[in-house]
C-alpha cells in the first residue's frame, strides 16, 4: 500500500508565490503530505475542509436486506479507517455519514438525495440490490454524485455516476460454464433461480452461452418466488432430468431451504452427479445454510475468503481484528472494500475531489493491493477481474480449484447474449 505522496498535480495548479512557500514547508515535513487548500481541490462546494472530507455509506442495516448488506458496511468502514490511518486522501481524513436504506427502495433514493444535497458528500459507498441501485441512480445523475456499487449484478447498465466494483453477469457466468464443460465434460444443464431480474438475466446469458457457444443443451429452466421454502418438486424434476450441471441463482432465505432439502432428499453433492454450480452463495450465505449441508457444491465468483495471496491474508486478518474472529467474508464484502480504495486512487490521480475530475480519472485506475489480487477500472466503469471456481467445504469455506488465467474484461452489454 502506497503512502500518500507529494502531489505534483496539486502543486502545478498553485500560484508562483504559494509554491515558494509550500516547498520549504514540504521539505521540513519530510514524511507527511502537504494538503492543498480546500477550495483548490474542491471547486464545486463538496464537504471538504482543510483536513477532512465527508463521504456517505448507504446500506440497509434494518429490514430483510440487512442480512446481506451488513458485511458491506463493515468492509467500507474498515477501508476508510485504514485509509485514515495512512494519512487520508489528499491529506484529509475521511469522515463518513452512514444512512440506512432500510431495505426499502424509495428510502435509498431519499437518503441518496440527503447525502448529496444536504451533506454534500464527495462519494457514496452503497446500495446492494439492483432495485435499490435503480432507485438511487436518477438522484446520483441529477445531482452529479459518485456511487461505488459493490454487488455482482446483471449488467445492462453503465452510468457515468457509478463505479461497479462487483462483477457484471458475463464475467461471473461464462467462465464458470466453460469450466464445467471443459473440466467436467458437462453436456446437459439445468437452470434454477429466484424469480427476479438478476437470475432471469443471468440465465438468459447462460442459456445463450450453453446453446450457441458450448453447443450443449439446457434441459430445464425454472424460477421460484423470492422467499420460497419448498423445493421438493424441483428436486424430483432434477432427479428425473438427470442434468450434468445444475446452475443455481437462488437467493436469500430460499437458499437455506433449497440446500437442506437437497441433502435430505438423498443427493450427495460431493458425487457431482449432478454437479451443482452456484453464482449466488458466498461464505456469508453458508453461515445460514450450514457448511455440512452444502459441502461439495461449486461457486463461480471473483473472490473467496480462502484466496492464498498476501493481500488477502492481510485483509482477512485486519477484517477479523476489526469485526470479530468468527466473521466470514464473501464476494460482495470484498468488492465493497475496494470502493473507498478506488475512490482514493482516483481522487489522488485527479488531484481533486470534484466529481467530474474523479470520473475522468477513474478509468485505468489500478489496485495492486486488492484482496482479490489486481483490479483495474475499465472505460465502462466496471472492473477487470479474474473469476475463480470454489469448492464448498464442510467448514463453510471455499477451496479455490480454478482461476482464470487472464483478467476478464467487463462487458455490461454483451453482444449476442441479449
Amino acid at each position, binding site marked *: 500500500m502506497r503512502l500518500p505522496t507529494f502531489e505534483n498535480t496539486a502543486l502545478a495548479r498553485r500560484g508562483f508565490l504559494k509554491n515558494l512557500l509550500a516547498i520549504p514547508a514540504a521539505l521540513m515535513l519530510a514524511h507527511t503530505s502537504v494538503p492543498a487548500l480546500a477550495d483548490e481541490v474542491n471547486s464545486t462546494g463538496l464537504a471538504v475542509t482543510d483536513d477532512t472530507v465527508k463521504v456517505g455509506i448507504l446500506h440497509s442495516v434494518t429490514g430483510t436486506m*440487512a*442480512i446481506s448488506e451488513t458485511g458491506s458496511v463493515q468492509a467500507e468502514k474498515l477501508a476508510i479507517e485504514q485509509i485514515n490511518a495512512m494519512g487520508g486522501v489528499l491529506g484529509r481524513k475521511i469522515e463518513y455519514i452512514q444512512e440506512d436504506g432500510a431495505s426499502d427502495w424509495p428510502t435509498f433514493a431519499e437518503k441518496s438525495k440527503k447525502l448529496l444535497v444536504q451533506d454534500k458528500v464527495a462519494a457514496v459507498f452503497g446500495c446492494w440490490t439492483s432495485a435499490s441501485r435503480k432507485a438511487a441512480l436518477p438522484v446520483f445523475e441529477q445531482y452529479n454524485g459518485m456511487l461505488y456499487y459493490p454487488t455482482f449484478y446483471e449488467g445492462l447498465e453503465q452510468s457515468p455516476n457509478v463505479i461497479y466494483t462487483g462483477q457484471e453477469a458475463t464475467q461471473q457466468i461464462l467462465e464458470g460454464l466453460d469450466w464445467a464443460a471443459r473440466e467436467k465434460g458437462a453436456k446437459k444443464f439445468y437452470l434454477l433461480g429466484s424469480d427476479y431480474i438478476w437470475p432471469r438475466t443471468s440465465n438468459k446469458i447462460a442459456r445463450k452461452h450453453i446453446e450457441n457457444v458450448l453447443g450443449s443443451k439446457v434441459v430445464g429452466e425454472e424460477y421460484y*418466488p423470492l422467499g420460497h421454502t419448498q423445493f*421438493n*418438486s424441483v428436486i424430483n424434476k432434477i432427479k428425473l432430468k438427470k442434468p450434468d450441471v445444475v446452475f443455481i441463482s437462488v437467493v436469500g432465505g*430460499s437458499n437455506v*431451504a433449497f440446500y437442506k432439502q437437497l441433502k*435430505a432428499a438423498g443427493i450427495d453433492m460431493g458425487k457431482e452427479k449432478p454437479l451443482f454450480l452456484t453464482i449466488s452463495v458466498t461464505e456469508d450465505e453458508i453461515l445460514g445454510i*450450514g457448511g*455440512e449441508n452444502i459441502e461439495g457444491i461449486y461457486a463461480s465468483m471473483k473472490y473467496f475468503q480462502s484466496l492464498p495471496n498476501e493481500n488477502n491474508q492481510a485483509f482477512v486478518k485486519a477484517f477479523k481484528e476489526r469485526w470479530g474472529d468468527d466473521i466470514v467474508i464473501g464476494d460482495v464484502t470484498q468488492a465493497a472494500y475496494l470502493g473507498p480504495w478506488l475512490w482514493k486512487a482516483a481522487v489522488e490521480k485527479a488531484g481533486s475531489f470534484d466529481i467530474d475530475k474523479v470520473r475522468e480519472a477513474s478509468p485505468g485506475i489500478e489496485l495492486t493491493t486488492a484482496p482479490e489480487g489486481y483490479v483495474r477500472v475499465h472505460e465502462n466503469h466496471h472492473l477487470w477481474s479474474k473469476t475463480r471456481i470454489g469448492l464448498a467445504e464442510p467448514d463453510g469455506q471455499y477451496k479455490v480449484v480454478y482461476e482464470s488465467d487472464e483478467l476478464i474484461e467487463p462487458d455490461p452489454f454483451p453482444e449476442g447474449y441479449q
Partner: protein
Amino acid sequence: MFAEYSASELTSIFAMQGFAGLILFSVFVLMALGLAIIFGQMGVINMAHGEFMILGAYVTYIISNLFADYLPSIYGSYFFLAMIVAFFVTAALGAFVEWAMIRHLYHRPLDTLLATWGLSLILQQLYRTVFGAREVGVTLPDWLMGSYPVTDMVEVPVNGLFVMGLTIVITVGVALMMQKSRLGKQTRAVVQNRPMAAAVGINTEKVDRLTFALGCGIAGIAGSAFTMIGSTGPTSGQLYIVDTFLVVVFGGASSLLGTVASAFTISQAQSTMEFFLSGSMAKVLTLLFVVGILMLRPQGLFTLKVRH
C-alpha cells in the same frame, strides 16, 4: 413430456412427487394450526405469527449450541428438548403479548392487524439486535438429515417423515384438547357466546390468554421443526405468513377441520403444478384457484354456525 422415460422411472417419480406433496401438506398444517386457533377461535389477525415461529427457531438454535458445548454425548436428542422449550418460551411471550396488547383490542379486529404488524416489526428488530442481522445456521443431528432409500430412485427424506409425524401428533392433540378438555370446551363456549359463557362462571379473560398462548406455543414448535427445512434469520418469519393466512382463510376461519382440508387442497394443487409447470407459475395458479373458490364461498371451505 414423459415419452423419454421408462415406466419404472415414472412410477418412482410419481411416488416421490406424491410424498413431496404430503410433506408440503404437513408443513402447511403445522404452520397454520397456531394461527387457526388464534384467528379462528379468537378473531385476532395475528400478523406476528411468523415472528413467533422464528422465536421457536432461535430457541432451537440456542439449545443446539448448549448441547454442543455441554452435552455433546447426547447431542442427537437435543431436538426434542428444543421443541418443548420452544413451545413454552413462545407461549409465555404469547401470554404476555395478550395481556399487554391484544386484550385491549378484542372489539376492534382490524386494529389487531395493525398492532400485531407493529409487533412483528419490533420482534424482527429485537432478533436482529440480539442474534445479529445474518442468518444463523442451526446444526441438525445427523439422524435427521439423511434419507431412507426405498429403491434406487425413491428416497424418503427422514426430516420429511419427522415433520409428518409431528404434524399428526400435534393436530390430534389439539383436536382432542378442543373437543374433550376443560380448556377446549371453555374456549369453544367463549367463541360461541361470550356473555353467556361468562354468565355460567367461565373466566373468559383467562381463557383468552391461554388460547392465545397455546396458538403461539404451537407456532413455536412449528418454527423449531422448520429449522430442518428453512432458514433462521430475523425476517425469516415473513416467508411463512402469506401461506399461513392463505391456508387458514381458505379453510374457513373457525374450523380446525377446514384448516386441514385447505392445507391438503392447496399443497396437492401446488406440488402437482410445480412439477408440470414452473415454480412461479404454480404459485400464481394456486393463488388464482384460491381466489376463485373464495369468490364463490367467501366463508371458506368449512364454517361453524355461530349465533352472534
